[in-house]
């Protein structure tokens, strides 16, 4: 068990922290909170299909998520993004439930899909997440200024010959790829709060985007470690405990930031 913790779970939570910090910041800046939540909900459909037809789970989740994002993209001119997300957010979940009812012989564990279970993770997930994280980090580091300028103002970025469509594609693909791997570990319901909370907390106490990303990585790691310890000590849900720890850190640093701002105004 100790060996599994050291060789599988520790690297996994470290990689989840890196992705949560970076992609969570992108999600906040691009106002993708609702969309990332709906992608994670929709990914349950992919997982269900993989259970029912014995396909590779990661591949199925990725395919359904990509189809979902493409659907949103095609319909974006007709409806506002908020309307689209509200329209489709839980359709994936509903479809998954209906599909599973048709196949009585196969049991789909919806509880672990919705609320996650780190014990479901295996070496393949670690390898997939390591490769995904490496690619995301390398692309981000080499294009940091272009990415930030595109997020700030796409027109200004385009006027500097930056391919903003490619950068948007990179951001959304990274989010989909991360959700694909992390959904069974963290759970569809809690995934987006674990993306957003550390980044939102870091934004209150940092002065530049780079520091915000780094601090959200640290906060994500901190909330995962404390959440896991709390869940082990009191036999609670791991993902739930991690999300609650993130929220406690958000409240504490939020109060600290508010006090600091009001003191500096006096």
């Amino acid at each position: 068990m100790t060996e599994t913790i050291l060789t599988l779970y520790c690297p996994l939570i470290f990689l989840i922290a890196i992705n949560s910090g970076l992609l969570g910041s992108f999600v906040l800046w691009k106002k993708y909170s609702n969309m990332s939540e709906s992608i994670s909900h929709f990914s349950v459909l992919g997982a269900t299909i993989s259970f029912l037809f014995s396909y590779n789970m990661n591949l199925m989740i990725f395919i359904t998520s990509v189809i979902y994002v493409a659907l949103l993209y095609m319909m974006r001119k007709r409806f506002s993004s908020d309307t689209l997300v509200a329209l489709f957010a839980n359709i994936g979940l509903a479809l998954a439930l209906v599909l599973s009812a048709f196949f009585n012989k196969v049991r789909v564990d919806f509880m672990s899909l919705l609320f996650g279970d780190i014990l479901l993770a295996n070496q393949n997930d670690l390898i997939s997440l390591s490769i995904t994280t490496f690619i995301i980090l390398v692309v981000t580091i080499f294009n940091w200024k272009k990415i930030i300028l595109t997020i700030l103002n796409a027109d200004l970025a385009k006027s500097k010959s930056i391919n903003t469509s490619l950068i948007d594609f990179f951001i959304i693909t990274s989010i989909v790829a991360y959700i694909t791997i992390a959904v069974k570990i963290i759970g569809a319901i809690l995934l987006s709060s674990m993306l957003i909370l550390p980044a939102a907390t870091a934004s209150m106490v940092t002065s530049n985007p780079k520091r915000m990303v780094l601090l959200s990585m640290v906060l994500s790691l901190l909330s995962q470690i404390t959440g896991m310890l709390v869940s082990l000590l009191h036999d609670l849900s791991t993902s739930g405990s991690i999300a609650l720890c993130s929220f406690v850190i958000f409240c504490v640093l939020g109060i600290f930031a508010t006090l600091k701002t009001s003191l500096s105004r006096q």
Partner: protein
Amino acid sequence: MNILEISHLKHLNEDQVILENINLKIERGKIFSIIGPNGSGKSTIAKIICEIIKPTSGKIKKKRSLKIGYVPQQFHIDKFMPISAEYFFNINGLTKSDYLPLISKFRLAKKMHRNLSQLSGGELQRILLVNAFASNPDLLVLDEPTQYLDIDGQIELYKIIEEYANLHKTAVLIISHDLHMVMKSSDHVICLNRHICCEGSAADVQVNEDFNKLFGNQLLSLVVPYQHHHNHKHGQEND
């Protein structure tokens, strides 16, 4: 000397004509203004020149390695984005030696480390102007640069633009709806309403029939003196 030439430019958006038959020559060191009502295609021209959007048809000939400084019409900073002016200039590829001489001119010395989301509209606009000026461009494209500035700020900005254009022989293209300021400061005024209605020096344009048709009401409001109508009594305490 022309640094940019546009000929027979047409732009459609989902079959709707946004611009047609646009011919424009931009000369070095001159201030050009594009005026026109809402939806007349002013910002679209600016975006086509800055290669933000591709026109449906037409030719655009640019001087080789033409450097353009652009101030977009809309610039909103999200509260979750912690970014200072210094960091903003840095991601735009500017060094301290590029922007520091302009900081005091635009009264921004005390705002350099503040979060951009905490600045007023006018302060943010001045930061965008510094960003465009500091790259030492051949052509400055300013889309509604005075929209958040008060009257003093507007006068000051046009003075700086004139000085800058003269000193660096930079061409300036201003998109504006503020006739009063534009008429005073431009070498060449282009009156746009999906096509070029009229163009020329401010004096020529002002007597043009098409110009008066488009801006008749605004011109009238400029000459009618402001009258303060009292429908209330001034109390001694509140006066």
